[in-house]
């Protein structure tokens, strides 16, 4: 379990510190006709790495996200986080959803602190408050700490959700199309901010998106999925220096390459 006091959590040397998705399959029992949503999906994310997961609609991205988060069970295979199989939701993983899902009855500050009491009940209230302050500062929402989510814009809500997920100091930040519900301008701003947060915290990030340009902007590597059944088509390394510019020819080449993989027939 990760500490909440800002220290990197200890991982013994023989453990794989990152995420391993190991031959994960998922079959839904349809009406008489079982549907294979995921088939033999394997890839890994190294500690500190930023990996994006892209694919056409219906490729099981969201199913895979739920399996990795421990919110759904895999039919075959397993997901390991730091060498330990994921059997259910864990505070070692900070999860961010597309629609924010803030608790509307809690203030920004209370939302961010929600996980702290449970992940580290021994920690003092002062320690938790300090952690909340740190997170609010990280996402630049200190002055909105007493606001309720209803008064925040979409971009601000997503910042709160990210701060809430990071507060418990998880190994992995797992995000499902987190910027899908905001306008293009806000989206680019949030992408830059996420890269800053990633750089300053050194978190491992697994980011699901359907936006290829977004994936090329953010990721060290892109796991490209194919549909019916959902499976890994190819893993693409993004060898472009950060900060990445959309006008850069290398950027365009990567986008074209990933688009081709998504569009290509198996």
């Amino acid at each position, binding site marked *: 379990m990760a500490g909440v006091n800002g220290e990197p959590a200890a991982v013994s040397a023989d453990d794989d510190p990152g995420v391993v998705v190991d031959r994960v399959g998922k079959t839904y029992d349809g009406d008489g006709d079982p549907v294979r949503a995921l088939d033999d999906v394997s890839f890994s994310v190294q500690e500190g790495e930023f990996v994006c997961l892209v694919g056409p609609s219906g490729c099981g991205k969201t199913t895979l996200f739920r399996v990795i*988060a*421990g*919110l759904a069970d895999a039919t075959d295979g397993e997901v390991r986080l730091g060498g330990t199989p994921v059997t*259910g*939701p*864990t*505070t070692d*993983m*900070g*999860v961010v*959803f597309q*629609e924010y*899902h803030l*608790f*509307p*009855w*809690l203030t920004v500050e209370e939302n961010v602190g*929600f*996980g702290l009491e*449970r*992940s580290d009940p021994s920690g003092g209230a002062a320690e938790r408050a300090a952690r909340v302050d740190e997170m609010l500062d990280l996402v630049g929402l200190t002055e909105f700490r007493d606001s*309720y*989510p*209803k008064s925040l814009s979409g971009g601000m809500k997503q910042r709160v959700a990210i701060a*809430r*997920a990071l507060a*418990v100091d998880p190994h992995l930040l797992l995000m499902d199309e987190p910027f899908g519900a905001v306008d293009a301008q806000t989206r680019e701003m949030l992408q830059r901010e996420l890269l800053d947060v990633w750089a300053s915290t050194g978190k491992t990030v697994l980011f699901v998106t359907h936006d290829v340009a977004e994936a090329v902007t953010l990721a060290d590597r892109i796991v490209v999925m194919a549909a019916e059944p959902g499976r890994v088509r190819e893993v693409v390394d993004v060898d472009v220096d950060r900060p990445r510019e959309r006008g850069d020819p290398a950027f365009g080449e990567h986008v074209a390459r990933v688009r081709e993989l998504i569009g290509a027939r198996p």
Partner: protein
Amino acid sequence: MATDTSGRLDGRDDTGAYAGLGLADPMRLLRGVAGVVGFLVLWYLVSLTQPAYVLPSPAAVGARFIEEFASGTMTAALASSVRHWLPGTVVGTGLGVGAGVAFSWSGFLDDLTAPLVRTLRPVPPLALIGFAIAWFGINDAGAAFIIAVGAFWINFYAAYGAVEGVSEDLIDVGRTLGIRGDLDMVRSVVLPAALPGITIGIRTGLGRCWMLVVAAEIFGVPGVGREILRASNNLLVDKVIAYILVLSLLYLLVDVAFRAIQRRVLTWQA
């Protein structure tokens, strides 16, 4: 009489301090006063053509109201009604909300109780008067029982539906943030998320319970309802209306108070 009982879901901008009575908007207030005055004038005109045992004039009702109040009869009846209204409402509401939340959240409890709930639900509280008398006697407890049954069902279904409507996504978020176990989930996510729906049930129940006060006093427990029934039997229509007015005023008072609390508790609501 304020007829706006639709809660905050009506989308009306009523965040002013006196919004419950529509006093925040002078035009609304003016129209409300005009409506009441118009009604009184109409009432007075009709009463001129009718004998007092069919429709007494507003003035006669007012005089009777003051008389009943001054003699202490009204206060005594009120105190008696409150003595069974309050415990009946509190117990019925508490049990209704509790059972609604528990049965809606737990599939096991839901399965266990669904046939019973469906069987008992259509029984009108008044049909239980025999039980009230047998179990509690002709007293406050008996009347409170009838009121509690009414409050129970309203709150049961409101709470049940509210919990059913809690977003699965919020529950998922709760799980990823370390909630383990039903108790923590219900306390930390389900209850607060369901609170708007639950408070609508409580508010509806508060009104319904005043109506049940009259009904519950049919079998002889003293109170405002008893006074109304007696006065009806004696064709004292002015007294009937005076006591109906008392009930209305009490309901209005409780409703305004409850809405103020509701707004405070649900400030976070959009």
